[in-house]
């Protein structure tokens, strides 16, 4: 005859004993294991800009405006090219007339409101071009501050704007340290570079990458170890813009110097 006490003891023992093999099913779920190893995502889009190769032709800006229907003559752009001229007196002169849509047609530096500053060739220490676009940050301040969630980050890391939901408050424009956001002159909602999401999600390159004849712009998948862009980022000395804001930018630069803003 089994006593009540031993019945309780034995049932606990059986329950506990069964729990171990059952829990192992959970422990060794291969899908979960893979997810934890590799945060479950197969794609994370990143961009690589080689400033040494950029000549400031502005083809990327033109291509972007056409591809993404940002009015050609509007003074806003999803991507742009900056020109840096460092002179012997230690000053840095920067400009980007019309976002360098038409390249840099004169050697004079655009200082705003139609004024230009001439710089003599013999005064120049160094000069170079830096293409800029949305950094598709891993910790995007624009997504954080959107009061209605109209701007969001996709699984593969690109930050998008829902044109049907944006209220046009401009908080994201203010929150972006890189100044990549603006109001679309036609739709009157926040607008930004999205790595040509409609193209990259179909296996194409972005419009600016295709337009660059010098290979200064490249797009890649950092989750793919065989991707040439990933290889460069992993093995060479790359830098990012304004790291101090904690935004974890995902546009990597080769040949970035301290003068770059």
């Amino acid at each position, binding site marked *: 005859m089994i006593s009540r006490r031993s019945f309780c003891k034995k049932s606990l023992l059986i329950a506990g004993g069964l729990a171990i093999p059952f829990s192992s099913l959970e422990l060794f779920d291969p899908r979960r294991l893979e997810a934890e190893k590799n945060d479950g995502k197969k794609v994370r889009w990143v961009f690589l800009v080689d400033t040494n190769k950029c000549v400031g032709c502005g083809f990327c800006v033109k291509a972007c405006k056409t591809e993404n229907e940002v009015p050609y003559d*509007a*003074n*806003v*752009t999803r991507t*742009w090219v*900056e020109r840096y001229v460092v002179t012997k007196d230690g000053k*840095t*002169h*920067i*400009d*980007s007339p*019309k*976002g360098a849509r038409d390249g840099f047609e004169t050697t004079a530096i655009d*200082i*705003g*409101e139609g004024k230009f500053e001439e710089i003599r060739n013999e005064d120049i220490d160094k000069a170079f071009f830096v293409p*800029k676009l949305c950094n598709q940050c891993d910790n995007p*301040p624009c*997504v*954080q*501050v*959107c*009061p*209605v*969630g109209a701007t969001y980050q996709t699984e593969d890391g690109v930050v998008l704007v829902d044109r049907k*939901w*944006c*209220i*046009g*408050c*401009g*908080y994201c*424009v*203010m*929150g*972006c*340290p*890189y*100044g*990549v*956001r*603006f*109001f679309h*002159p036609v739709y*009157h*909602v926040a607008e930004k570079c999205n790595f040509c999401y409609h193209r990259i999600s179909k296996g194409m390159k972005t419009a600016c990458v295709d337009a660059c004849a010098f290979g200064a712009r490249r797009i890649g998948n950092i989750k793919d170890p065989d991707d040439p862009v990933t290889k460069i980022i992993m093995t060479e000395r790359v830098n990012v813009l304004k790291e*101090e*804001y*904690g935004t974890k930018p995902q546009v990597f630069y080769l040949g970035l110097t301290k003068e770059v*803003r």
Partner: protein
Amino acid sequence: MVHGEAWTLKEFFVYPNEYIYWTIQIVMYPFMTGLVAGAFVLSSLYHVFGVKALKGIARFSLVFSFALLPVAMLPLMLHLQQPQRGIEVMMTPHFTSAIAAFGIVFSTYGMIVASELWFVYRKHFVETVEEIRRVPAGDRSPLTQLRYYFFSALTLGAQDIGHEALEADERAVKKLAAAGIPVACFLHGYAGFIFGSVKANALWMTPLMPVIFICSAVVSGVALCMLTYILTMEIRKVLARRKAQQYPELPSHHELKSAEAHVVTMTAKYLLMFMVAAITLELLDLIFRGYTAVKSWDILRSVIYERDFVNIFVIQYGLGNLLPFVLFLIPGLTVRRAAIGSMLVLLGVFMMRWNVVIGGQAFSSSLSGFMHYRLPIWPGTFEEAKEGLFGAVVVAVIPFCIFYVLNKVMPVFKETH
């Protein structure tokens, strides 16, 4: 044309997409919420802390705070690019955003002020209903009948104005006013947080911002209540003189004058206290920035000490803080001097908002260029009307219109309890 291009002048290197996106309406927003919060705090000084001397202005500022409340939202709506979707902030808030809490904070505060007003004015509503009830139903004009229905509805069926019921009302007012102070401060401190948390903006990003905003809010609210109080008392004095013979039971010209002087002197004391706190914090912020001199200080210095020098040091600190400070401190405060002083204080607080909002956009995030805001005076386009002088004046005038209407329903100068 791109939004912002009409009023932005760029100098040196500014990123191509950067414009002054937040314009005078965003200056008006913290200014108006500041007035709301300040007016409420002033009324609470009497209701919660029993500062008897402020009794005359307490009810006045409570009604005024309620009149200002809907207007706090207006500048935000006017600056949105898609104002028809503005309601989504309340319907689908995205809570990582500082703006998303606006709906909750704003409606909580609105409900507190509305219910406090109801408890304060319940006696008046019931008395009005009873007064109309004395007239036989057949003799009432349609307007009186309408008034009857309106005020009956306002009583919400609670028509007991016995001693105990009124005491219960007063207890409720006290509790609501006490609950309202933190909510009012939150409403406004949170406006400061919206700016203070923008890490991309070197001028805005400081944890002091909410506190600075609260202090200057109380200053501006008290100043506006004092100014409006003086103005309405002056009108009442003129009316009293005119009606003295016809209605001898009304307060006389002299009674009004002494009451006014008393209230103004007392309010001025509180104004000064909050002003000292506000200026101390603002200067602390400025000194700290100069002392720590981080990367952005070079451009901030040229904005603060060169480009915006007149706006900051002459108009805001000089005309808006120092001069009224002296005016209020000279012994023998007269009503006229108090009126001028509070006008200057309002100017000072407005300029403080201006220098934060517009000043914060006076430099590029590249830290290598400047932007200048050219206020659209005469509206050429709808956008310039909305975000120019015209829009700002509309926002500034509406609370006074609402106050006029509210005063018909809840007379601020009638003795209730």
